[in-house]
């Protein structure tokens, strides 16, 4: 019952954000410097529409209505799952997005797998060996990793792993090997942040009185670390996994373009090159919606990670 209440409350909080995302996507179309009617009429690249044709098209597309009316009509369609069709291909935007979503999702999951298997253990290790050389070198690596541009790292890694050593494919989509490199590059910056966070979070927990109590009761250091300290350090780590999933979605644009992955990122890039506004707006809406869902799942995970929420004691 408690859980249901919590879930519903969080869902309600997401409503204004959903509204904002919709408004933002709509405004993207408004601030675009080129006239959508002109874009539609000159798609073939040869025709030069007359003023009358332009006016007719503007009327047909509802561009002469006041903005608020346009927005209401647009939002109404959006909530029925009607994101319009691409100017260029004529394929419904939602269909293309759903078709491409699994690519980006698997990329994001591989990236997350890198974070969880590499950065979190490294962060725990750095905290255990705090201020010794292991900690120092891990922190240095993390700092350098967060300073290197992802696209630069991608080019270098493709050169060594794909072209020189021929260990992994350089691009394309279809097998898990093709996801290893892009996932790693996508995760690189996130891994650095996650390592630092896991380290500080664990160090903070280790200073709590209950750790002292555990120690005074003669529990082994190993048991204190894994049974008491590490699980408690995960609360803040999970929050950031939510935040960084958002970053991973954005970073996937660059990574997908380098590794030729047919995901959401390469979709929006192609849309931008073609001035395909419905596709760009659809992308923003879709990603905004994904972020809301991700944050909701993260909130939900608090419920399981933090027993205090379940008993109704908020702090």
């Amino acid at each position, binding site marked *: 019952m408690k859980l249901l209440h919590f879930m519903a409350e969080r869902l309600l909080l997401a409503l204004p954000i959903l509204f904002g995302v919709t408004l933002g996507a709509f405004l993207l179309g408004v601030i675009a410097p080129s006239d959508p009617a002109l874009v539609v009429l000159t798609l073939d690249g040869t025709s030069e529409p007359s003023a009358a044709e332009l006016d007719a098209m503007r009327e047909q597309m509802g561009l002469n209505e006041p903005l608020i009316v346009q927005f209401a009509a647009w939002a109404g369609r959006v909530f029925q799952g009607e994101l319009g069709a691409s100017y260029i291909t004529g394929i419904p935007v939602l269909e293309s997005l759903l078709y491409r979503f699994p690519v980006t999702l698997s990329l994001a999951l591989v990236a997350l797998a890198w974070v969880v298997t590499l950065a979190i253990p490294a962060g725990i290790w750095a905290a255990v060996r705090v201020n010794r050389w292991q900690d120092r070198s891990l922190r240095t690596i993390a700092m350098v990793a967060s300073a290197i541009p992802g*696209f630069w790292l991608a080019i*270098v890694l493709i050169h060594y792993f794909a072209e020189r050593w021929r260990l992994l494919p350089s691009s394309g989509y279809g097998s898990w090997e093709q996801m290893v490199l892009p996932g790693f590059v996508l995760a690189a910056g996130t891994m650095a942040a996650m390592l630092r966070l896991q380290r500080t979070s664990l160090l903070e927990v280790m200073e709590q009185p209950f750790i002292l109590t555990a120690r005074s009761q003669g529990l082994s250091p190993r048991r204190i670390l894994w049974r008491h300290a590490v699980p408690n350090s995960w609360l803040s780590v999970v929050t950031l996994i939510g935040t960084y999933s958002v970053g991973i979605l954005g970073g996937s644009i*660059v990574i997908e373009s380098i590794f030729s992955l047919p995901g959401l990122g390469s979709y929006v890039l192609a849309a931008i090159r073609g001035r395909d506004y419905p596709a760009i707006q659809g992308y923003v809406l879709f990603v905004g919606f994904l972020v809301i869902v991700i944050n909701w799942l993260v909130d939900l995970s608090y419920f399981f990670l933090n027993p205090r929420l379940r008993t109704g004691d908020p702090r």
Partner: protein
Amino acid sequence: MTGRRISPLFAGTGAVLLVFMAVALLAPWLAPYDPNAVSRDAILAPMSQAHWLGTDALGRDVWSRLLYGARVSVFFALAGAACTMLLGAFLGVIGGYFGGVTDRLIQIGVHIFQGLPGMSLMVALAGVMGPGTFSILLAVTLTSWTSFSRLVRAEVLRVRYAEYVEAVRALGAGHGYVLWRYILPNIMPSLIVLWTVRIGTVLLSVASLSFLGLGVQPPDADWGVMIFDAKSYFRTYPWLLLAPGACIAALSIAIQLWGDELRDYLSIDEEPWREG
């Protein structure tokens, strides 16, 4: 200045930053060639006395392009972070100080923008508006002001109801005077530190935009454009790729370290804003 010592790391990274700034300012005088001058005789020339870092596929001097690239990259990093700070701080101060409906509205805005994925929105904005200085700055600003406004609002709320502020108000000081004279100096240190953190992230974001072809446009080049140009040639001419990459990394590391040292120097305790 009691108890405050300038650590060697603070001084060292500060010096590195100064060098980058100086290069950015003095590029026209330091660069031996016009960065966009195409030379058919010297295509992909190796490193030599004439061309310190060789030339690229169009025969342009890489060293000169790197120096001019610093100009563009540093400008966008500083200006982008500054715009973000101004917008975020303004909304944060207004919301925190006046409270009520204004604050509510701004907070809703913060929630909305936090819910939008930064890089995705940045790409969409820069893509829709077409490339240009203004659209790059707008894209960078709109997608990252929330961490500033949250920090500033929290700080303002902390001092807003302090007794000394109440006292000054009772003495007849106007809102503008209180904000300028008492609130702003209090939040300045945190603002500056957050700004430096921001410079590093903006540097990387703008480089990514340029790499995607949505940022700085040819013939001008920042380091992101140079990396993109180097993509097809670096196997034989690794310098084309290494030089701009090293510049981005070095500048970004220097900013990070300097920001950390600055925080220690200004003795600001934790980093609650880092996650934004």
